[in-house]
């Protein structure tokens, strides 16, 4: 079964690990590509830099942390949604805090989902699960 990749953009290794755990918990067996910041994420998406050799196929979903060094999540989102080649990729914004203005801006830029990372791991798992299930499994990727 050729499952499409999930791009996880997360600067925190802990959060990344916890996210992967949570996805595994939910039996999402997609291959997870990780970018450590926004710049890497863009490299990945545009197949440049360290990711120049990656397969052509775009990820099924981008799990995007908001607050990151260098290029932050908001910038990544803006670039993705501004790019006709990329904008069809669903983006789930994940953040530690429910700041109204972040939320509003994210939706302005065309985010597909906005998830406040719960402190409770269990809740976190649930949130990831819901997002992952929806975009990685249920939705057909755009052609």
């Amino acid at each position, binding site marked *: 079964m050729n499952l499409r990749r999930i791009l996880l953009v997360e600067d*925190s290794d*802990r*959060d990344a690990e*916890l996210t992967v*755990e949570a996805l595994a918990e939910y039996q999402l067996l997609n291959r997870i590509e990780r970018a450590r910041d926004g710049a890497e994420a863009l490299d990945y998406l545009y197949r440049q830099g360290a990711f120049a050799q990656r397969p052509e196929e775009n990820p099924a979903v981008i799990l995007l942390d908001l607050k990151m060094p260098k290029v932050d999540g908001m910038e990544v989102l803006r670039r993705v949604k501004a790019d006709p080649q990329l904008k069809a990729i669903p983006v789930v914004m994940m*953040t*530690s*805090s429910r700041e109204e203005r972040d939320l509003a801006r994210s939706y302005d830029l065309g985010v597909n989902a906005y998830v406040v990372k719960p402190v409770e*791991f269990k809740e*976190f798992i649930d949130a990831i699960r819901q997002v992952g299930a929806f975009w990685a499994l249920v939705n057909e990727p755009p052609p």
Partner: protein
Amino acid sequence: MRRAAGIVQDITERKAAMDEVLAGRARLEAALASMSDAVFISDNEGRFTHFNEAFATFHRYPDKEACARTLAEYPAFLDVFFPNGELAPLDQWAVPRALRGEVVTNAEYTLHRKDTGDRWVGSYNFAPIRNAEGQIMGSVVVGRDVTERKRLEAERETALAKYRTLFECFPLGITVADREGQIVETNRLAEEILALPGGELRTRKLGGAEWQIFRADGAPMPPEEYPSLRALREQALVANVEMRVLTPRSESKWLSVTAAPLPFDGYGVVVTYADITANKRDQQALQSSEERRALALDAARAGTWEWELATGRNVWSDELWGLYGLPLRSCEPSYAAWRRTVHPDDVNRLEKALQEVVRDGGELALEWRVSEPSGGTRWLMSRGRPHRDEGGQVVRYAGVVIDITDRKQAEVRLRESEARAQAMLRAIPDMIFRLDRKGVFLDYKADIKDLHEQARSVVGRRNRDISPPAFASLIERKIEATLAAGQMQTFEYKLSVPEAGELDFEARMAPSGPDEVIAIVRNITERRRVEAELLRTRNTLLEAQRIARLGSFEYIAATQTTVWSEEEYRIYGLDPAKPSPTYEVMLAKCIHPDDEALLHQTFMKAVERLTVYELEHRIVRPDGSVRWVHDRAQPYLDSQGRLVRYVGTTLDITERKQAEERLQESESRLRLAIQAANIGLWDWDLLSNAVYYSPEWKRQLGYGEEEIAHNFQEWQDRVHPQDLDTALRRIQAFLAKPVGRHEVELRMRHKDGSYRWIYSAADVLRDPTGRPVRMLGCHLDVTERKRAMEVLRRQAERLQWLYGLSRAMVQAGGTVEGTVMVAMRHLIAMLKCQPAIVGVFDREDGQAELYVANGEGETIIRNVPLPPKEALAEWEGLRQARVEIVEDTNSPVGPQRLAHMLRAQGLRSYVGAPLATHQRVAGALLVGWPEPRAIPAEEAEIAGEVAGQMTVALEQIRLLQEATQHAQTLERRVVERTAQLEAVNRELEAFSYSVSHDLRAPLRHVHGYVDLLAREAGEGLTEKARRYLATISAASREMATLIDDLLAFSRLGKTEMHEAALDLPPLVAEVSRSLEQAHPGRRISWRVSPLPRVYGDPALLRQVLINLLGNAVKYSGPRDPAEIEVGCAGMEAERAVLFVRDNGVGFDPAYAHKLFRVFQRLHRADEFEGTGIGLAIVQRVVARHGGRTWAEGALGSGATFYFTLATTPPASAAGAVAEQETSI
């Protein structure tokens, strides 16, 4: 009887008639038959040839024929007596006497019928009848029955004698006086009392000056108080006036005087005098210290006695001896001893009474007299009571004896005075009736000429039963009125009397006891008739006089009295019922004091020369009003040419006089007004060209009376040359066509050389052809008015100019330079000054700016050092903020340094004015001239005013500059502050943003990995290890909650509020529902009372409710069920006080103040979870809405949290809210 009188009087006529009778028998028969007197004619033999009907009646014959006898037959049955009672022989009877030729009138004979016993009196007129030859042919006798008249006359004689006797016997002095007070009647006692013997009293007048009369209090009694005069004046009884009289013989007497007006015609007043001199003396003695002693004696004048009936033993107290007139214990007390002391006249009466008392065993009460050794008597009274033994038998009497002499004497006096009164009543010769309240006649006394014959039988009968009902009612009413008033009532009535027709009566009714009255009744019929007639004739005259307002008067020379007509009384304002005043009284009382002497002189002159008296004079009425009258009277002389009287008229001319006076007044008023108004008069005779100039006319030009001649030239010479033409032209124009009046204002030269403004107005007088002959005018000096008007005009101009300057300065652009230049240009134009200088001082840097302007241009010199301090100090005007005027800079007047400086600049005079506000001198204005000059005050004022305006303008400029600078500074600061605030805000925001992310991430990691660890380790973990992991989890979770709350709290201060009207109940319901869902298993009883609509931010208020209701749920955890109440506790300063109450664990009130602080908790975390931020959020939200929060509670008994919210829209948002509401 009365009707016959006319016939009797003229016997010659009768004789002529008799001749006729003899001539014609039939005529005679008829004439005789109609006569009421007995007429009988005899022949010369004494045979009765003719007699009439009355003859028979006269002689008491039943039939006429029986009379037809000869005279000789008469003596057989008729006795005739002379008036003296002697029997008249037949030859002395009327017929024989007539036949003997006697002609007699009123011969009286008493006739007696022997057969019937009738007795009557006849009055006879008789005369012989002669034939042509003079022989006696017979006699005619006319007889009239005068029996009744004689009887009445006799009765009157008797009565008069009786009354005269009574009059003399009265125990009072009596005088009777006529209306004038002349004494006409007096009795002996009056003569005695008044100490004037015999006829002397009768020549005097009541109240004459011979008597000096004093009141009881010792003061002289004025004549108007004399009882006699009062009774006359008031026509009323004046009773018992006590007075002391000093008689013409200088004897002092105390009298009690009573005076009563007499109801007689022609009589005036009766006065009685009781000599009370002795009484008075006693009274005065008693009033002294005697009084007390007498009273003491009186008290001692009582004694006691006992009388044993069986033994006859008497016991007398000591006083009894004295009372009985015996020496003390001079004998054995006994009945006999007592009996001896009793007055002989009383002994029998006493013994009889005593026997009866003792026989009946009754009480004893006796009064008797005791003879005094001195000869007098005293009255004693004894009262005693019986004492009985067991058998009821009287054994003893005991009693008291009292001296009652005084009381007895009083009784006697009373009886005497009653008797006196009775006698008085009887003495009054009118009808007198005594009636009781019901109108029953108790007593009467008839009039001498009484026509009430039946009155004799009325005693004991009721008036109503014998009189017409109307009359009876009247009398009963009058009786009631008299008794009610207790005073005499006078009234008149008409009554039909048999045989007399309707008569007029006058009654005076006075109370004579509690239930009876005495009425004195007079027949006033005749008086009424005469009065009525008199009244009728008089009324005609009066009416004429009244219409003419013409009074008439007579002055009777002999008595110097006057008689006035009714209209005369009216003119004088006096009562016509009163007697006319004497000449003297009139002069003193009725004539205006100022005219009194004039009237007297005028009248006396007329009396002396017997000429017509004529005078206009003033009178004073009793009410004080003054009238003018015109008197005119003519003398009437007797045959000897002596003055008898003046008869004249009085005309009330007050209205005419008043009109005259008003005219005079208005004339003098006008004259005074002209004087007061300083109006000069001129009167130009156009024909002679003479002009009269009044003193005021001359005075206006400074001249005295003699300094200006009365001609036209004097005027013409003084008119200002510029005005003369106009004035003359106007005068000519007016004379040519005089319409309205001539008016001109012109200048005339004053004596001092100045010109005065004169207003001249005039009118013309014409001759009958219409040609102007005189011109009359007035002068008014209007110089002052003109000058005042000129000043006003100049002031108005100046104000206008200043206003223009003020506007120009405002328009000068708001710079100092422009303002100053504009002002200086105006000044130079106005004052023609050269130059104008303005110095503006700036104290701060010690520099000044000088602005110099002359007609050609302006110069500005900046940064001039301020004038040296000394120079400024010298300029006092500057310091004192007043205008300095220097008319010559060479003079020592004004600041000398400045003068020196200005001289150097070529200035010789100047006006300096400070530019001064009340705080400081900001500069100075100086206007100068190159030459010394007199500077009018007005110019200095203008300079001062301009300086003032400049000051204001410069001050405004300065303030405006300052304000502009200030505003700019402020604006800059606001920008800076705002930037700072914004930076801080940004930092804060970044901070909280990173807090919200970066603080939460580690917690999430802790939690996540604990979870992973637990899963990884699985069953391998010990129980303890699992508990550790759980604790780590819980701790991190708490930390996360804390961070969330803190962030929410910090965000509260930043978010914008969106206030709107809010209905609380749905919100409460929503929040409580979600709380119930969050706490399944809890039983919560919600009670929400009606809540007002409030205004606030819905999201924030929702948070408040979540926190408060959440707390309530949390802290009532131990309760089942929990009770939570949401309500409104009323209003506080236009805000609703809302509360949330629970029945939870409550709190310690001591820490209530900590409740609302951040992180403050009153419970440990293991009791109740919480971060300590919820209430802080509540407080912050409520505070942002302008309200307040507080809590009440106690440990273990629940808590109540209060907060207040507005119930009206916030002022700024009111419009918006209203809009919102309507759009919904």
